[in-house]
């Protein structure tokens, strides 16, 4: 539902939110060994035929990781991009396992906090204005065909 001309985003506010928890988040991103062991613990990963985009570390690296990296040149399109990753691919159930004990849910929550501060937030398939075609795809994995 983005408006035609791309609204600018309040970079200062984003910086505040990110810097507030910079220590812990940067350390976690830094120490992640990219070992891929968090995958199996994510219900959506398994429910989407182990598609790498549903792996917790993938979601974190491509949302919060990029937010910290591109903190200078952020724009609304980028936030729209990661919106899919941290809302559609993740329900923040908080069960991701990391052998090193990295707190993955708090990282996804921070990325969501940043988006939400700019008015961008996940649209549930069931709320008004949700693209209908979004919905059948989410049910395909459990064998519910279109007509049912």
């Amino acid at each position, binding site marked *: 539902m983005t408006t035609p001309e791309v609204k600018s985003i309040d970079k200062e506010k984003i910086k505040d939110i990110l810097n*507030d928890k910079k220590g812990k988040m940067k350390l976690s991103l830094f120490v992640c060994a990219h070992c891929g062991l968090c995958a199996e613990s994510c219900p959506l990963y398994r429910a989407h035929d182990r598609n790498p985009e549903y792996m917790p570390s993938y979601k974190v690296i491509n949302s919060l990781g990029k937010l910290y990296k591109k903190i200078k040149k952020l724009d609304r399109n980028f936030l729209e991009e990661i919106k899919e990753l941290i809302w559609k691919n993740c329900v*923040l159930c908080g069960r991701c396992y990391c052998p090193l004990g990295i707190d993955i849910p708090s990282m996804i929550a921070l990325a*969501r*906090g940043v988006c939400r501060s700019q008015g961008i937030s996940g649209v549930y398939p*069931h*709320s008004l204005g949700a693209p209908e075609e979004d919905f059948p795809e989410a049910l395909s994995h459990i064998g519910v065909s279109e007509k049912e």
Partner: protein
Amino acid sequence: MIIAKVKPLEEIKDMVKDYPKVLNVGCAGCTAVCLAGGQKEVDTLNTQLNSSFKADKVSFQVDGFTVERQCEMQFLAELDKIAGQYNAFLSMGCGAGVQFLAERFPRIPVFPAVNTSFVGVNKDIGWYEERCSSCGDCVLGITGGICPVTMCAKGLFNGPCGGPEDGHCEVDKDIPCAWVNIYERLKEQGRLENILKIFPARDWQNQIQGKIILEPYKKRYIK
């Protein structure tokens, strides 16, 4: 999902009229899914409050902040930075969220903006129906997946009572009789004997405030 419904605007206005600066805390969990307390509803309520109070010439300002879930302290912690600037909170989370928010900020009055109604299902956009009253002792396995405690108006365990006509409850013709449906479904599944024997009086579990500490974590919290 927990289903809630926004309180009437007048009732909310009446609660917060004496507080010049209010923070409206939204919840992106259940109340967002049932279109009662998500970020969009927070913005809608804020606009209504601001314009209505301006019309009444009352100095009032409400800001919005939607946290991930109000039932987890780590997400309520996000409010610590800004909580001090407000005289009161409005919370659009479910009853549990409102109380957890109040626990975290005991000196700031917290007002509920939604009425938590039931544990239910999304029949369609904006249409929600109760399915579970969390009685703590589930018998759905016996009644073919239809809950006698919730779906039967009298909560009978050896139903149906004398009241149902052509499948709907005596209370309201739009409400299907749970026990008629239980009968049909069990008959289809060939498990009718489940409701042929007498169901004994129940030990009601949800009589005091519920608390669950899972076995593997008991040693962390019970000395």
